């Protein structure tokens, strides 16, 4: 069975067009659209009011495929995603006959190791079970901050493996299969070595602090 309708839920609280989770989800949706799948995009930050939440719940119920693309916050799903997941699970629990919806989770984190997303992915899988969805796979990505919210295609060779992994994911989903292990293997290949990534990351934080005039305050302990 091929998925014909998809819902992408972006789990970042950042403004639209600036988040890494949105960039990842947008790339995957574009590949799915090439296969004839129509998608609706929701952002958790804009689904907290009851009328918006109703729209999301209805879209999920009629979707063939539900994709969550989210950052990892403190080793797990962010508050807004957790709250939305609670609402979705509660909504689905009231349905005697649940619609068949396949669920894919994509979790990105700022640490270079994708393995640090495992607990968040496990939480997504438990959510899938509780909400009565069909788990088709979870993808974890380390070094997510390197995307800087930009379209993956614009990042060239830096995102080659990442895009290949998402291409494999889209192919599998369009063919009605689960996400192949090779897709995660492609995402697991670091774009840059871990030590270089952290050096670049640290430099980025120091530059940002200098722009703010807080370079000498970066280690402040205001709550002590």
């Amino acid at each position, binding site marked *: 069975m091929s998925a014909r309708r998809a819902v992408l839920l972006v789990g970042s609280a950042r403004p639209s067009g600036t988040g890494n989770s949105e960039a990842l989800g947008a790339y995957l949706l574009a590949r799915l659209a090439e296969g004839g799948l129509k998608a609706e995009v929701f952002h958790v930050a804009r689904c907290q009011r009851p009328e918006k939440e109703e729209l999301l719940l209805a879209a999920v119920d009629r979707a063939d495929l539900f994709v969550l693309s989210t950052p990892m916050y403190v080793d797990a799903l962010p*508050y807004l995603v*957790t709250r939305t997941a609670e609402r979705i699970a509660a909504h689905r629990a009231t349905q005697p006959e649940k619609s068949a919806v396949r669920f894919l989770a994509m979790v990105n984190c700022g640490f270079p190791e994708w393995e640090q997303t495992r*607990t968040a992915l*496990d939480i997504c899988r438990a959510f899938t079970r509780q909400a009565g969805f069909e788990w088709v796979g979870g993808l974890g990505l380390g070094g997510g901050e390197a995307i800087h919210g930009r379209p993956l295609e614009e990042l060239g060779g830096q995102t080659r493996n990442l895009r290949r992994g998402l291409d494999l994911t889209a192919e599998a989903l369009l063919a009605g299969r689960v996400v192949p292990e090779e897709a995660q293997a492609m995402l697991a290949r670091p774009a840059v070595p871990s030590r270089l990534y952290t050096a670049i990351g640290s430099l980025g934080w120091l530059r940002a602090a200098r722009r703010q005039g807080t370079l000498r305050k*970066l280690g402040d302990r205001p*709550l002590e």
Partner: protein
Amino acid sequence: MNDVTDAAVDSAAPHPATRAVVLNGALSGDETLAPVENELLELLRETGTLVRDFQLRDIPLAHCQGCFECWVKTPGLCKTDGDAGREITGALIGSDLMVILTPVTFGGYSSEIKKAMDRSICLVSPLFRRVDGEVHHRKRYRRYPALAAVGVLHAPDEEQERIFRALVERNALNLDSPATSVCVLPAGASAETMRDRLTTSLEPVLGHLAGRAA
């Protein structure tokens, strides 16, 4: 604030200086955590621990916006003021023991707990360190509280319990907690069961804190 209470101070107790912060993550309408919290507070009271108890669902607390301004613009402080965020993070970093009390939610914490946890990233530095070959954020403060988590499961679920334990261990690693304990209880457990399991799980953490104080 009526949601914050000093549970007890007993100067005759063996570790009178221990300060604990309890974050109660019960969702609206869920009263299954209340008896667990009563036992927990009683147990801490008996050890002479000074407790601050936050009923998160009743407290105005905005969510983390993922802007990282607490790392670079106002280092160590979330830009959001006027809610309980700074009070909670200040209480956490000033405590010896942080206790998370939550319904086990898809193996993790409830959204109420997550809202408070997400706001706690100001307690670490944006810069990196390596722990056992894995990258984590550097410490901002000299010392961090021990971490105890008490999860309430509405139905037996080994997979959710496994995830919950893994999550607490990951949090302890990232928050540099000097000691950790996890207790998973079934909803509606008897007072005796609650007390036994809470005592057993908290013993090593309280023992660690007592040793540090001695």
